[in-house]
Structures are given as C-alpha cells and as structure tokens.
C-alpha cells in the first residue's frame, strides 16, 4: 500500500495520525480520502496554493498521476516566513 505522511498541524487535525496507508488510483484520490481533505483542497476541489505535494521525494503539481502501490506521498506546507 502507498503511504501518505502529514505535517504536524494536519496530523493534529486527523486525530493525531501522521501516517496513512492506503490504496488509490491517483494521488488526488489518495489525498481526497484523507479526513483532512478539506484542508488540502478548497470548496471548489482545487489544491490550496501553499500546500505542496511530494511523491517519492519529488514535488508534483499534477495530482492526477497514478499512485504506485509502494509510493510515499508527503504533504508539505510551503516555506514562507518573516511576516510574523
């Protein structure tokens, strides 16, 4: 099964679970099946612009690529700082 790894804020929102093992046809399907899907996608179903997705260590903008059974999907909040 593929693995999806959550950053700490999303893990807190998922009841403390940081790692999800699941099967899905695409990366998007995998993300949409998570209990925190509405924090990754907005109400129109679009990925929030500061949520980055890495598959096996490489950032992907296309979420409709097939999800390999041994894939590692990592959700990473964009790095930004300095304002506060």
């Amino acid at each position: 099964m593929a693995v999806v790894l959550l950053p700490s804020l999303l893990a807190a929102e998922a009841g403390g679970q940081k790692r999800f093992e699941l099967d899905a046809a695409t990366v998007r399907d995998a993300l949409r099946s998570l209990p925190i899907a509405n924090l990754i996608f907005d109400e129109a179903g679009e990925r929030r612009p500061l949520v980055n997705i890495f598959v096996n260590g490489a950032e992907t903008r296309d979420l409709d690529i097939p999800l390999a059974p041994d894939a590692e999907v990592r959700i990473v909040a964009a790095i930004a700082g300095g304002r506060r």
Partner: protein
Amino acid sequence: MLILVGTRKGLFLLRGGDDRRSFEVDGPFLKGWDVFHAVRDPRDGTIYAATNSWVYGGSVHRSADLGQAWDRAEQLGFLEEGDLKLEKTWHVEPGRADEPGRLWLGAAPGALFRSDDGGVKWEAVTGVLEHPTREQWQPGAGGMCLHSIQLDPTDPSRMLIAISAAGAFRSEDGGTTFAPINKGVAADFAPDPFPEVGQCVHKLLQHPARPERLWQQNHCGVYRSDDYGDSWERLEGNGLPSGFGFPLAVDPNNPDVAYVVPEEGAESRVTSDGRLGVYRTADGGATWMLLEGGLPQEAWLAVMREGMAFDTHDPVGVYLGTQSGSIWVTPDGGEEWLEAARDLPPVLSVEVAEL
C-alpha cells in the same frame, strides 16, 4: 469567569473568580491556527473558534470539553457554482436559547453562514451573498469581513450584521433577507460621503436590555442609533481624541454607557496620545471620559475589532486584549484596570463566559 482569548498563535483560556481580579492562563489550544474569534455557547458550553491558517484556509473548530478535544467544520464554503471562495472566518455567534444547534458565522468575502447542526455543516445565506447592493461593497484593510452579528433579544425575526466596508444591515425575517441601515453614517473616503452602502463599520453592538439602541465604531466616527439603525447620530468629539478605532463594549446594566479605544487614525493605527486610552461615555455618547486607572500611560498599542468584551455583572467587567499580548480587565466598570495576562501572542479576540 472564563476569558477566551483568540491570538495569532492559537487560543488561550483564562480562568478566574467572580471578583475578576486574578486569572490563570491555560493553553495554547489550536496550535498553528490564527483564532480570529472564540466564544463559549451559553446553551451547552461548547467553545466555537473562527480559525484561519495561511496555508490551510479558514474554518470553525469546536470543543465540548473546554479545549481538550476539537472537531472541525466538515462543510464550509461556497458550494454553488461561482467565483467566490471562502477567504477567512471572522465571528461565530451562537443562536438563541430556543434554537438548539443553530449558529451564525461571519466570514470574508462579505458572507454570512448558518449552521443548524452545531457547527458541522455551514450554509451561506443567499440574502447576503446575492445582496442587490453587493457590487458597491469594498474590502477594508482586513478583507471584506462580516464581523458583527447581533440577534435581537426580544424579537426572534430581527438580527443585525455589519461588514467592512459594506455597512450595517438589518433582517426582519430571521436572517433571510437584509436591508441596509446606514442613514447618517459617513463614508468620508467615498465620492458620496453618505452612500446607501459602503460604510466601513468596524464593530456594531446592540444593547441587550434596550434593543433599539445600537452602537457602532466606524472607520469614520462613533455612532449611536435609538431606532434599530434607521438613523444614526455621530458622536465624535466631546472628549474623544479620535473617531477612529475598532473595539466597542457596552454595559448591560446601563444603556447610556459604552466604551471605545480610539486610535490616531487610518494611517496611524496606534492608540491615541501615546497611551492605552479607554474612553467611557455615561450619557449616551454626549461626553466621553478617559479611563486611566492602572492602564499604561506610555504605550503605542492596537486593540483589534474583536478585542474587547463585557460581562453581565454590576458593576460591569470590561476585558480587552492588545496586539502586544496583554489582557486588561476592569472589575468596576472602568475605574481600576488589572493586567490579567501578559506576553501572549498578538491578541485578535476577547470574549468572556460566566461559568
């Protein structure tokens, strides 16, 4: 007493006795979230928080056990086809005592949401979303936020909302349709200084014991209405160093009493005269008096629009939180002020609950 303090970095709960003189700080809860507003629902004790993340968007969290466990809204946003997207959540208002499960949410851009299931699912109110004057609304510096929601205590069909910068609106049909109530309220920044809509209301309150009396802290002055907002009187001057400011408080025991915290102006948003100056009127806004007992007299601060609250005691307790992370409390209507907490993150909201 429980003070709910929303900050840039989570929620803090301050617990204290009825003497309102000392408080213990608990938290932070909701780490990683900006808490624009948090309130304890007097009907069942649930805490609701308008939460925002610069990465993950706006939401509403709720806790039935004073912050130990939290759930998040499952459905919130603009579900119909259209260009609007939820930007931020600003204010949660619990429904009336005989409306279990009903809540109202003010949000940006210019949106009112209603929940009938205790905050799980939220539906946008069409009468605000498709308001015939919407084209004339403009976002203020904080976005086009719907920040004030007042449910009339005597008439269940009447409620009031205010949006920056769209103005104040009143519903007479339980929150389905809304009519502008901005007569006499200035929009000094607009080509027409007295338009039907477009006023930059910063906070609006309805007096709980005299519901026809409304108070408004506006970008362009402090106002009072004695006819549910049909007309407004500008109360600037008479002791106020500036008409510009954000927070507002009233005394439930006396409709002639109100509190404001003036700032220098739109271009210099710090407390007037280099002090933390809370001003109180005891005559319906005709005159205002500086309260300085215990408050910093050399200070350049800001108190946000949700940053002041009041309780139901007599004398009234008033609570305010600053952008520099202090919570100030007066247990006697404003004569003496005590610093209930300091060095918190920048304070966005203050509410008080009587347990």
